[in-house]
Structure formats: C-alpha cells, structure tokens
C-alpha cells in the first residue's frame, strides 16, 4: 500500500455508509442507510427477517450491488471498479450462515486456497498460517478431512479460519450460528468472542443476544430496510426507545 492511501486510512474509520439505497426489482430493501464503523468496533445487527440486515452487510463486500449512496471501506470507495471490489474483498472476510466451505477440497486446502491464489503466498507458508488458525479455532486434527466429514460447528469454525487466513481488517458475520444445532452454537461463539477480544473490526448479523451483550460496542436494530435504533448493548436491551424495537426484543427474549 502506498503512502497516499495510508494517509487517507489514518483516520480511524473502517467503514462508512452514506444514504445507501437498494432495491430488489421494485422492492425497496435498504432505505437511506447511514452508518459509520470505527476500527476495532464490534457491531451486532439484529432485526426481523426481511429487514435488510443481511443485505446491508453483503453490500459492504459487494456481494450485493447497491443502486444509490456511497460505501467506503478502509478508505476505498466501493463502486463498479473491479479493482476496488477486489481490493476491498481482500481486506474484508465473510462468514456465511451455511458455511459455504468448498466441498471438493480438504480443510487445509480450503484455508490455503485464497492466500495462495489471491495473495500469491508460497504454499508452505500458507499451510503454516492455515495450521495456526486451525489451532486457534481448536480443530488442527481435522486438517486433512473434507468438509462433509465435519459437524456443523466445526465447519463454521473452519469457515472463520478460512477468512482469517487472508488476514482481513474487517470481518462480516451473516447469521453464523443460525444453521447450527443448539449444542454447537457456543463453540462458534467462543471463537467469535476470542476474535473480538483480539481487536478485530466485526459486524455480526445475529440473534445471539448473549453474544451481543458480551462483546458488542453497539447494537443496531433494523426493520423494513431502515436502521430504527442503535446504541450500547445495555441501553439497547434495557431501555429501547422505539416501539418496533421493544416488540422485537419482547419476541426474541420471551423464552
């Protein structure tokens, strides 16, 4: 990275979203979203299904294309310039609800693929780094297996390790525990908590409110394509202002 971009980055803003609008056909999914995320900040996004929360974070690495507004990630503006898109994707890791591991590759190959082919890292070095991350998510012994041989919780931890191997500055989590059996949720959340403690900038779409209380710097509530309310976790959970937020919280915290 050259000195000039370094300077732009010297502000502590990781992501800034201004007046973001997106439509699926005629359906207006995101309405005038404004959001600034600082480096090292951990954001939890929640809201009812169809509220646009997944779409929002998928806009950040251009898996979804926005029609209006401005997204700046790590000092780079996200537009249709393929170079910018590639640059941003190298710096932004993403974890999906359904893991999306590559089933034809071993766990180790899943982890080393992008470092080797995108970062042009020598294979040996990529494997060393991959093994370090597998240690960190506590499954180094699975390195030579295929994704289909692992449990859901293990697969999701591999998916997190796969993203981390690219040494991203920002991590996006799109409902990472929603497809897991209940007994596997905590092993994934533990990995996410330790990642948060290491200072990673994180945006998590999740309904794990315990996780939100423990690590989030800010909780954002979305409904019908808008950010309805945001605040510190304790304020958000104990003292929500908006009726829609209160209704949502009463529904998910009822049990």
């Amino acid at each position, binding site marked *: 990275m050259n000195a000039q971009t370094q300077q732009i980055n010297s502000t502590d803003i990781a992501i800034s979203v201004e007046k973001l609008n997106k439509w699926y056909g005629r359906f207006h999914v995101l309405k005038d979203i404004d959001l600034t995320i600082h480096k090292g900040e951990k954001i939890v996004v929640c809201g009812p299904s169809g509220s646009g929360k997944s779409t929002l974070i998928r806009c950040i*690495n*251009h*898996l979804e294309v926005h029609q209006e507004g401005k997204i700046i990630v790590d000092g780079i503006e996200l537009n249709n310039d393929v170079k910018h898109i*590639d640059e941003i*994707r*190298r710096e*932004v*890791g*993403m974890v*999906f609800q*359904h893991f*999306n*591991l*590559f*089933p*034809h590759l071993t766990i180790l190959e899943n982890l080393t*693929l*992008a470092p080797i*082919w*995108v970062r042009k890292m020598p294979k040996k070095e990529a494997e060393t780094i991959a093994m370090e991350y597998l240690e960190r998510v506590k499954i180094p012994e699975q390195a030579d297996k*295929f*994704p*289909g*041989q692992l449990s859901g919780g293990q697969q999701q931890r591999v*998916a997190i390790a*796969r*993203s981390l191997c*690219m040494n991203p500055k920002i991590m996006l989590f799109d409902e990472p525990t929603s497809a897991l059996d209940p007994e596997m949720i905590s092993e994934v959340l533990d990995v996410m908590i330790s990642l948060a403690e290491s200072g990673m900038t994180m945006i998590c779409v999740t309904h794990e409110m315990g996780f939100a209380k423990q690590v989030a710097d800010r909780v954002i509530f979305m409904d019908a394509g808008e950010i309805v309310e945001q605040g510190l976790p304790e304020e958000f959970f104990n003292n929500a202002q908006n009726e829609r937020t209160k209704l949502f919280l009463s529904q998910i915290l009822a049990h």
Partner: protein
Amino acid sequence: MTSVQHISKPDRLPPISQSGPIAWVRERFFSSIGNTILTFIGLYLLYLIVPPMLNWAILDANISGTDRSVCDANRDGACWTFIKVRIVQIMFGLFYSANPDQIWRPIMAFAILGGLITALLLPWIPKKPYIGAFTIFVFPFIAYALIHGEWLGLKVAESDTWGGLMLTLILAFIGIAAAFPIGIMMALGRQSDLPIIRYLCVLYIELWRAAPLITILFMASVMIPLFFPAELDFDKVLRALIGISLFQSAYTAEAIRGGLQAIPKGQYEAADALGLSYWKKTILIILPQALKISIPGIVNTFITLFKDTSLVSIIALTELTGITRFAAGSLEWKGKLIEGYVFAAFIYWCFCFSMSRYASSLERKLDTSHRN
C-alpha cells in the same frame, strides 16, 4: 441427590433372517405374490432365450477354415470364420486390408494411445497434466503420421480408405477431445452475466442441437465444398470430424450446464468474498464441482457419440458398422450380416461399457460429500 450411572448395552448383530443369503433372495425375488410371479416369468424367458443363443453363438458355431465351406456345411451355428478372415478389414478398413503388411502402423498408434490412457487412469503415475496435454495436443499428430504415412515416408493411406474400428475410434476420440473444451466454454458462456456472450452461446448450442447429426454430416460433406473453391478441397474425414465435434460440443455444453446450475450460490459467494477473480473462481471452485456432477451426463453424450459415429457411412466413410456391411456384402460372404452385426455390436458394447464403468469409478473417487 444420588446419581445413577448408565451402563450402555453392547451392540448385537441383526437377526440372521434379515441378513443371510436366504433373506437376500427372499427380499429381492419373492417379496410379494406379484414379484414371485414376475420372478418365474423372468426365469421362463431366460430359459427360452439363453440356451438357443448359446448354441448359436458358441456351442454350434464355426470358426475353422478360411472360406465359407465350413459354414455352409453347418448352418445351425454362427459363422465366425467370416469375422476371422475379415478381421483386419473390420479393424482397420480398406487400405490396411489391402496392405496387411502395414497394419503395424495403426496398431502402434493405438498402442501408444492405450499406454497414454493407462498412464492417465493409474493413480500412482505422476505428472498427469503433462500426459493429458500430450494425449490431446501431440498424440493426434503422431497418430496421423503413422496412419496416413506421408509424413514418415510410408505408403500413403488416404483418409477415405481408412475404416473399421480404427476410424470409429479416431472419430470418437477426436470428437470427444475437441468437444469437451468447447462444451465447457459454451456452458460457462451461457451462464455469463454479459448478454452478448450469453446470447451467442445460446445461439451456438441451440443451432447445433436442433440439427440431426446426419444432416450436419451431409452438409459437411456435400454442401460445404459447394461454397469453397475446388482447390480448397479439404479432407473428408476432417470435415466429418469438424461436424461431429461442433455437434457434440453443444450436447457436452448442456450436460455441463446442468452441473453448473447444481452448484449452490453460496459457493460463488464464498469464492467472491475471498477475492478470487472470475477465472480463478471458475477453475478452482466451480468447474471441479460442476464437472463431477455432470459426469453421468457427459459420459452419456460420449457414449451416444461413440455409437453415432456409425452415421458417417452416409458420406461414404466405412467405419465399424459401414465396413461390416461392406464385408458381409461381398460375394464371398453374402448372407453373413448377422454375424457381422453381432460382432460389431459386441465391440461397441465393450467400449461403451468400459466408458460407463470408468465414469462410475471416477464418480466414486471424486465423491467427497460423505453422504451415506
């Protein structure tokens, strides 16, 4: 509070009545009254068909001698003498049956091919990509040099005198090898986000798929020369090959497209999110999975092509089927068409069956889904 320790029960084998050979037979052949009746009807049909066939093809068959006198003396069985006498013609066509001292040339070509394919199939042989590239890009020229002969200063075998199984294999092998990469490109193009590429690929695929192969061969042979000056008279086998390859590539493309469509969207997204470019994503993530899924469909089109090469007899090329009809039409062996066709069918079956077996072993080998 006292805690109770749970002692797990040991595993037992299932009862013998559900796992032994008697259970196996009962479950498969006599599971209901209807199935029992079908089993007996099946056995009766086998009794009607198999013994007479065995008698004709093996027990009463003739294979001695070098002319039809033996066969004429014993008309109950098949006349394999015909095949034995004409085997060079059926294998290598007219030129080589007229010049039997030259048959080492095609034999050598196919021995090299056999060696290359064996090397590709054996798991412990290294450098497969190089062997594969050699087979596809270099071997055809070696084979042409040997079979045609001009480049090596051998007696020239013009391509319209090639024939028999040799020509069938040439047409099928080159047709498959050329159609496969074109098919992949067309299938990818049909999925492209760029409308012009997409429409061109759709047009290409639908154009070739909508025409029967026999029409394409006829056009390649008869009509194309009408549009080109007479000096530009290129080889008849080459023209057939181009027609077959283009026709075949459309089918291969559709088989591969089926595989591409079966790849979950998440695979594309995960590759995108990691920053892989379109070609890296396609080659490293999408195609390996899509091709694996399309193996049954691709092999199906290859088997179809292998048999469809018999249609080149419409443009007077004598591949396996054509040469069989030719041989059985000779004065010497008149009336031996059945033996000829049974033999040709057997050869077709051997090749198609091996392709199908290899495909299923490949499918098993590549299966990393670990579903039960």
